[in-house]
């Protein structure tokens, strides 16, 4: 008896993509069965997006592709199919959702019309009116509130999550056999990400659509997919059920990737597992300083001198002081508020006021590692800017290292500026592209002669694991992780007492992220810094910080020792955040085969 194996929905054979200068995909082959949900993970530059754009036939003109790509029920190889045939397939038999919901929709067209268009293009609805009515139904299907009204909205009137729902409605409109999603939730907040992922999972399961979901985030794959491909430098190095790959990875690269993704697992020196990726310069001299956080129950608890009380804001209750420290705290914030006037409003009515921060009070003790976690629009960046005296509060006091900085003049802040240093999120944008690394790192130094400045720059670069010969290069010659090391060197060269980091590792790949986090942890210990780390990523804060404040809608809603807040969250918002970002162990348990 012969079993007829059903034709796969998508079959890719020996796909190679090359630019005039280099081979980018080295012959990858895979099948996706009907209704199968497959994840494709890898770091930036591994070729994930190239794979998806090859399938859609949307590669840039400068790249050439060879091999075969077959779609169930289509006789021609997609790589050689004429453009006219591909136009019939795109958006109809196969559809794609892109990463950036901000820019992927036409800003000048109502979203309902954009959804309707995909049906009129393929003549799947009779006429414009039916297509518009169907668009509203689809918007309801992706759970957009008030779908009829939403259809008339322009993209800028919707939130990022809502825009991604519109993209999904569009992609699913013609009931495609295959849905490709390229980092669909990377730009979204964690709680929104969880909802959108659930929606994608439900939509494809209900309709039996095959799914290829591209992401750098293992948690996303675990949430939605059955099978996972791991890509590394243009090749698929591992392919297997999600549960197996997560718990028992075979390929060394997968093993390292999963270890580096796991921010709750550390080695016996309390350091994150890193991947042996080439780094410019000699390896970091390892410091045997004890880590002051507990990673899991087996590690001995060494608490910082100040231990925060675990508190939450009561609904409707009075404003409260979080993490109140005795003696002289490094940072002391009382009743801090910041309001903005939004432009616009009526001709005669005053401009509407937006509350960035409301009645925020907290302390950070000297030597504490204080994490501030919140989603976009929560006020965390406003708070960070005020702590660094880059913005002025509307009301309240901010004392840093005993000096009041609210309302202080730039002259009075001179000492403050050298004592409080910042590492920013974007390692590309925050370094002047026309300055040499030497000048970038030396810039904060004042009243120091050139020879001494150079010596200090060299020593500082060595401390962040970079060779002295990088001094004469420009920022664009470095990778993201290296640039972030340069930013850290610049921040530390004045020997500050407080280091503020704003999403300092958010733009980095998983492997590089672990290295930079280890470096930050080492340097904070070595220089006895007080660290304020602002992030949307609970995992990063959990690893790096001993105390965490959760900020939502301009208020601190909960604050306490990191482990307590994560294990027994008191505020409903914290609970929601924590459950939206499961740890690797949690994920492994969920997907266990």
């Amino acid at each position, binding site marked *: 008896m012969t079993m007829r194996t059903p034709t796969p929905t998508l079959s890719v054979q020996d796909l190679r993509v090359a630019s005039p200068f280099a081979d980018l995909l080295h012959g990858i082959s895979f099948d996706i069965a009907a209704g199968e949900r497959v994840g494709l993970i890898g770091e930036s530059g591994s070729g994930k997006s190239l794979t998806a754009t090859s399938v*859609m036939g*949307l590669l840039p*003109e400068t790249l050439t592709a060879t091999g075969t790509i077959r779609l169930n029920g289509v006789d021609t190889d997609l790589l050689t199919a004429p*453009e*006219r045939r591909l*136009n*019939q*397939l*795109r*958006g*109809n038999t196969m*559809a*794609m959702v*892109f990463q*950036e919901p901000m*820019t*992927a*929709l*036409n*800003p*000048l*067209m109502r979203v309902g019309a954009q959804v309707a*268009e*995909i049906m009129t*293009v*393929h003549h799947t609805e009779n006429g414009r009116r039916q297509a518009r009515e169907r668009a509203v139904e689809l918007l309801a299907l992706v759970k957009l509130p008030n779908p009829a009204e939403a259809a008339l909205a*322009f993209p*800028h009137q919707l939130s990022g999550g809502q825009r991604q729902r519109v*993209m999904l409605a*569009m992609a699913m409109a013609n009931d495609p056999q295959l849905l490709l999603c390229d980092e669909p939730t990377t730009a979204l907040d964690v709680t929104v990400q969880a909802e959108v992922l659930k929606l994608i999972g439900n939509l494809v399961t209900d309709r039996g659509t095959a799914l290829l979901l591209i992401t750098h985030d293992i948690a996303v794959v675990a949430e939605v997919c059955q099978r996972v491909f791991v890509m590394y430098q243009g090749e698929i190095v591992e392919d297997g059920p999600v549960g197996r790959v997560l718990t028992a990875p075979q390929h060394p690269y997968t093993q390292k990737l999963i270890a580096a993704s796991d921010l709750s697992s550390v080695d016996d020196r309390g350091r994150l597992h890193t991947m042996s990726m080439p780094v410019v310069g000699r390896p970091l001299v390892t410091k045997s300083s004890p880590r002051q956080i507990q990673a899991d129950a087996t590690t001995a608890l060494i608490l910082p001198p100040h231990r925060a009380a675990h508190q939450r804001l009561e609904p409707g209750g009075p404003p409260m002081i979080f993490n109140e420290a005795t003696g002289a705290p490094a940072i002391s914030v009382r009743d801090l508020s910041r309001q903005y006037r939004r*432009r*616009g409003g*009526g*001709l005669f009515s005053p401009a509407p006021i937006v509350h960035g921060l409301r009645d925020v009070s907290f302390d950070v003790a000297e030597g504490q590692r204080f994490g501030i976690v919140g989603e976009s629009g929560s006020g965390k960046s406003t708070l960070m800017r005020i702590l660094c005296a880059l913005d002025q509060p509307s009301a309240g006091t901010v004392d840093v290292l005993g000096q009041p900085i609210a309302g202080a003049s730039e002259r009075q802040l001179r000492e403050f500026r050298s004592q409080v240093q910042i590492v920013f999120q974007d390692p590309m944008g925050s370094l002047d592209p026309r300055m040499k690394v030497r000048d970038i790192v030396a810039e904060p130094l004042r009243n120091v002669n050139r020879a001494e400045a150079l010596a200090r720059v060299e020593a500082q670069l060595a401390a962040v694991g970079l060779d002295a010969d990088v001094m004469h290069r420009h920022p664009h010659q470095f990778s993201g992780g290296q640039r972030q090391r340069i930013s850290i060197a610049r921040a530390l060269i004045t020997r500050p007492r407080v280091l503020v980091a704003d999403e300092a590792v958010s733009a980095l790949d998983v492997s590089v992220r672990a290295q930079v986090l280890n470096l930050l942890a080492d340097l904070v210990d070595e220089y006895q810094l007080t660290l304020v780390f602002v992030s949307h990523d609970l995992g990063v804060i959990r690893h790096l910080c001993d105390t965490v404040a959760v900020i939502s809608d301009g208020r601190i809603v909960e604050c306490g020792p990191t482990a307590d807040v994560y294990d027994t969250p008191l505020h409903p918002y914290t609970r929601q955040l924590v459950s939206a970002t499961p740890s690797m162990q949690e994920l492994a348990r969920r997907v266990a085969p």
Partner: protein
Amino acid sequence: MVLVVLRRIGVFATTVVVASIVTFLMLSILPGNAARIALGVQASEADVAAQATRMGLDRPGIVRYVDWFGHVLIGDFGTSTVSRQPIGPEITDALGITVTLVLTSVVLALLFAIPFGILTAVRQRKPDGAILSGISQIGVAVPGFLAGMLLVTVFAVTLRWLPAGGWVDPGEDFGGFLEHLILPAIALGSVQGAVLSRYVRSSVLEVMREDFIRTARAKGLGAGRALFWHGLRNAAVPVMTVLGLQIATLLVGAVVIERVFSIPGLGSLLLDKVALRDLPAVQGIVLVLVVFVLALNFLVDLAFTVIDPRLRSAR
């Protein structure tokens, strides 16, 4: 949306009043007595004083301004000190001619620039695209008066198809009006068209790289349809900024072409009146020009608001 438009109108009206004050002040603080200028150097002191009283120059500045601007608002620009004729009709005639010429040339420029710019953008990597792009560079470099003289030499002098200059009122003889309009409009439009096509090209190139064009392709639209339905409206915004600036410059800038073709336009009128030191006329023409440029900016802003929904609530 209505509120945004109302606010724009308010800003427009305020700017017009401020501009009228500035125009009035600038010309009244110029050295030289307007009454003496009107009468000539030989006039006696008594005659000049009588003339000043007749012109109302002995009244305080604020009264003179209110009087002048009040009359301007009802279309009365006063009387020329040179020809003793009312200035209003003279300005209206010249303005009509210049606006006709400028708008025709801009329409011609757009008819050329939009398809040509899109073509050079779409064919960017192909050899023909590079050649076309080079042609428009040459167009940018040729001055308008040179183009005008070339056109006259070829079509008027050698071929004798069209008149070399002058102007015919469309009410009198519409055929003659068109004949006299064609060459100057082409001369004026050619340079504008070349410049505009550069902007159209870069704007289209920019839009073609946008994510939403990729989304449109992923929906099954061909490259051409994606550009047409989603790209062009987005590409129009920066082009319109340039277009508004160009028209504003041309209102006076057309004077060079007007001289080449001996057309009695507004720029020519202004130069004549300046040479004659006919101050009331100069004052009136400058104000008309300022109001026109302001109105143009107002219309461009309004068009932005219509094209781009993001501006409806943001400003």
